[in-house]
Every structure is written in structure tokens, then in C-alpha cells.
């Protein structure tokens, strides 16, 4: 088993784990739990993309992983901003007052 094979199987394993974690989106019970599963999807996707990119020596995939990291962080911050709009101190500027 060569090194790229091992890295690709590790990427597949991480993706399977993340996909199992998405069951939490179905079960809930709160929106925060669902967003946690999405955050795990973000970080697991970063790890799988890095493994894939190094295994196949496709340099551009590492940039894709960097973009996914950025978007996952923005998604979680936007969720927290949205879930606590009436009483969040930080959302004062965005209420249009």
C-alpha cells in the first residue's frame, strides 16, 4: 500500500465519519446542534480535501480547502448572528438604527 493510497483511504474514512455526524442534523433537537454538525462537516471537509490534495499532488485542492475553512467560519458566525438577533449586543449595528 503506497502512501497516496493510504492518504486517500484516510480521506474516505474522514468523509464517512462526517457523513455519520450529519445524522445530528436530522435528530436535532435544537438549531445549535444542527449547526454543530455543519461545523464538523466544515472541518472534516478541510481535512479530507488536504489529504486528497497531498495524495494526488493536486496543489489547487489545498486552496479549495483554505476557501472551505473561510466559508465554514462565516457560516457559523452568520448562524449565531441570526439566532440571537433581538438580544445580541453585537448585532446592534446591523439592526438599521
Amino acid at each position, binding site marked *: 500500500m503506497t502512501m497516496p493510497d*493510504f492518504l486517500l483511504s484516510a480521506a474516505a474514512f*474522514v468523509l464517512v465519519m462526517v457523513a455519520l455526524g450529519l445524522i*445530528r442534523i436530522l435528530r436535532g433537537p*435544537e438549531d*445549535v446542534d444542527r449547526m*454543530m454538525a455543519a461545523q464538523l462537516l466544515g472541518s*472534516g471537509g478541510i481535512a479530507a480535501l*488536504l*489529504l486528497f490534495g497531498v495524495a494526488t499532488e493536486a496543489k489547487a485542492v*489545498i486552496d479549495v480547502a483554505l476557501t472551505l475553512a473561510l466559508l465554514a467560519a462565516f457560516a457559523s458566525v452568520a448562524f449565531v448572528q441570526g439566532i440571537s438577533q433581538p438580544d445580541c449586543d453585537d448585532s446592534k449595528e446591523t439592526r438599521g438604527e
Partner: protein
Amino acid sequence: MKFALDIFTIFAVMAGAFFFLAGTVGLLRFPDPLTRLHALTKADNLGLGLVVLGLLPQTDWPLDTIKLVAIWLFALLAGATVGQLMACAARRGGVNAVELTPSPTGGRSGWGRPKGSEASDLSCPHPNPAPLGDDLLGSTASHREPPK
């Protein structure tokens, strides 16, 4: 030397994959949002960190290596910030308020605040909106006052 680096890669990537396994199991099995967040941040930081650490010997030295480390540092920063914000949202209750105590499974009521009590001891932003005249520093200072 190459063989030793390959062995290091295999062990570090396997350890990272194990942390993702642990994060998934914790996310599915833990009883309340804060413990699930705990398991999730372990998978975020340690799992991704060990995977990146294991991949470092396989990349070209200056640019790709530094880029991988930068991705991990960014994930650490974002994970810490988002974890704090989500813990605040879970404890304070958002649109769907989280009932921390009593939990539906029972028996885990030691750490949460009693139902209906004031949340003034939290380090999160206060649930009641600050007066609009307050700036952020003022609301933080008033937040640190001892509860009356």
C-alpha cells in the same frame, strides 16, 4: 529518513482520523449541547491538527508546508471564536430556546443554571439588550458588576 517520515505520516494521520471518529461519536451520543460542542471542538482542533501535522513531510518545503500550517492556524482561530459564540447561543437560548435543566434524560442537573434564574454569572453577552447609549466597553463593564 524517507521511511521514518512516512511512518510519522501514517501515525499522525491515523491519530487525526481517530479524533474525527471520536468527534462524530461524541456529537451523536452526548446528551446536551455543551458536551456535544466539547466533542466537536476536539475533532476540529486536534483532528485537523494531527492530519495537517502528518501531511507536512509529504509536501514541498516552503510554500505548501506553510500553507498547510496557515490553514490549521486559521481553523484554530475560527474554531475558538465559533465555539464561544455557539456556547453562548446554546446557554442563552435563541429562537428555539435550549432547556438545559432539567434535561430530558434526567440526572444531569448539577452544572446548568436553575430554570428561570438570572444568567448574570455567564461570561456571554447579557440576554437583555443593553441601552442603546452604551458602547461596547460600557456594557462589558456593567456586565462585570456583581449580581444584585
